[in-house]
């Protein structure tokens, strides 16, 4: 695997260059160790397809999604104002992000506050790359014939009606795709949305992600595909809780495609002890 450097928008602008798309990494993608691997897979794909892209680096800040969903509209709008000032300062036109929460906020909530961009979820972007013939999975990719189920992120699926892009991308893997009992419009939440990721669950009789893991196990998959760093955490945790981590991998679609296209080494998601 070759190494390459990811330019920041500041660097690119200083060199008088304009990227085709801004890769909005998001907080989980920047700081969470597991999510960082998804971020790297997306960057690999963009680099491999020779998409001129940049990141904001230290200039990126939380979109404000968890603050808004937790009721702190002030903090959300402060974050929005700050991010919009940066994005508009660089005259950003297109954004791709690996996080459905960032995607939803940037796409639907920033325009009214002065931030108008073409925003794509990474599965939509990857689908376009495949459709344009710029990205191809290798013959004999490691997922050929394997049983994969996709967990719909709420803010990609129900929130924005995008059920096709992730499935179209998975379709290129030549794998056996199986739908869970509750999928698409009826997909069950992983339990992390609405700022739940940052707090203990309220009193109940089980965790939401454990409930969702039952749906996963019912399909008897080898891989659970995700499209959201928070879903990824929750499903990884759920599979571990069911003590099935040795037989079920939880991977983001970007990782599956990057592995299938020989861009990153195939690896189990669970760290073997």
């Amino acid at each position, binding site marked *: 695997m070759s190494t390459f450097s990811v330019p920041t928008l500041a660097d690119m602008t200083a060199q008088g260059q304009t990227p085709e798309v801004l890769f909005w990494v998001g907080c989980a*993608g920047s700081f969470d160790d597991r999510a960082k691997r998804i971020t790297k897979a997306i960057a690999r794909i963009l680099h491999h397809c020779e998409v001129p892209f940049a990141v904001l680096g230290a200039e990126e800040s939380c979109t404000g999604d968890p*603050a808004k969903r937790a009721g702190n509209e002030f903090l959300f709008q402060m974050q929005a104002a700050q991010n919009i000032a940066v994005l508009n300062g660089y005259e950003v036109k297109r954004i791709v992000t690996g996080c459905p929460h960032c995607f939803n906020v940037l796409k639907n909530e920033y325009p009214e506050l002065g931030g108008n961009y073409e925003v794509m979820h990474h599965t939509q972007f990857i689908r376009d790359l495949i459709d344009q013939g710029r990205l191809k999975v290798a013959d004999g990719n490691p997922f050929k014939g394997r049983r994969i189920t996709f967990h719909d992120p709420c803010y990609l699926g129900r929130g924005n009606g995008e059920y096709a892009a992730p499935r179209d991308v998975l379709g290129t893997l030549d794998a056996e795709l199986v739908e869970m009992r509750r999928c698409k419009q009826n997909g069950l939440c992983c339990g*992390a949305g609405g700022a739940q990721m940052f707090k203990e669950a309220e009193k109940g009789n089980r965790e939401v992600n454990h409930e969702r893991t039952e749906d996963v196990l019912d399909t008897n998959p080898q891989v659970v595909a995700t499209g959201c760093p928070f879903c990824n955490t929750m499903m990884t945790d759920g599979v571990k809780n069911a003590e099935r981590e040795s037989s079920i991998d939880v991977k983001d679609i970007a990782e599956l495609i990057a592995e299938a296209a020989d861009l990153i080494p195939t690896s189990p998601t669970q760290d073997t002890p």
Partner: protein
Amino acid sequence: MIAQLLFAMCVAAGVGLFAKRIGFIRRNILQGQDVNRSDRATDRWKVMARVALGQGKMVARPVAGVMHIMIYVGFVVINIELLEIVIDGLLGTHRAFAFLGPVYDVLIGTFEVLAALVVLACVVFFVRRNGMAIARFRSPEMGGWPSLDANLILVAEVILMFAFLSMNAADHIAQTRGLDHYIVAGSFPVSQWLVPLYQGLSDTGVVAVERGMWWFHILGILCFLVYVTYSKHFHILLAFPNTYYSDLTVQGAMDNMAAVKKEVDLMMNPNADPFAAPAPDPDASPVKFGAKDAPDLSWKQLMEAYTCTECGRCTSECPANQTGKLLSPRKIMMDTRDRIEEIGKQRDANGGAWEGDGKTLLGDYITEEELWACTSCQACVQACPVNISPMGIVLDMRRSLIMEDSKSPESITSMFNNIENNGAPWAFPAANRGDWTKEA
């Protein structure tokens, strides 16, 4: 003549009580905050046609959906008969539309078949509700009145349909016997099976049954008209405006608060004088952030509360509810309706003014624990057959908790602090945001 007068008085009383109650509900709904839903009329009519008129979201659950369509179509179509009943009642005629001939036969025949389907659906619903272990009918908020309300309506519908069919059966007998006033008209594909019930009666008896059932049917409908305004069954009317005024943005989008935007704009404006006194605005009322009590919600949210028919699809889809948390989206809607009703009644008792009663929707009806269980997954919004958003109320109440009362779980406060200080919900320095690029 006396009968006609009595009939007119009954209709006037029923319609009058109904209108009074509608006025009360309308006033209650309009206590809500302003929100603009007057744009995109064409799209709105389409949503109404698909969701309310076309029952588009009902069939997501096929058994309940198809049964509901039977009752819905039966209700709407059989009410054409009501027109004839009112004309007959006021003019003292009998089967005023009989002149339609074969068309009339088809009409009456259709009504009868639909009436039978309504009875079937009501029986199935009654069994599902009372005899089967369907979780959404057994939630804590369904105890007492809500369950009784549902059963009352089902039983009433069966009785009304039975009265309608009995009326036709007796009429059929009267027609066969050639009794005075009973012109031969209509077809009776269903009520012919009820003929043996009344066949043994004398001519007077048959006429008594026919007249009795006619009166019972129309009085029953008038009672029903008034009753629905006190019941979850008010959805039969409000489903239409409620879907018309649907939120047309994608489900994931949450509104940006205009009051907050004004403040943030001021803060971000380098030319603003931070010490300037606010410009005097004679119309300004103190801004409240989020919803603490029912009138803090928008009129649309209050309309949703009156539209809710407590079917519980939202609750059965809610991940929090499924995992034993306190939150039930249906309860949020029921609490909101109960509260705005209560405020409305107190207003009436107080000459129209509302001075508060020391209670609020948030706290006295809905607890913080319920609000904090929501994952904002929108499953409740997706599930609602009439486009209600319980999630919208939950999130508006969180806004009140945070921005009015600064009340949040400790971990949520840390998340806020982290975003404020580091631009991320976790305590990582912003400078390290690009570190992953070096690890590649």
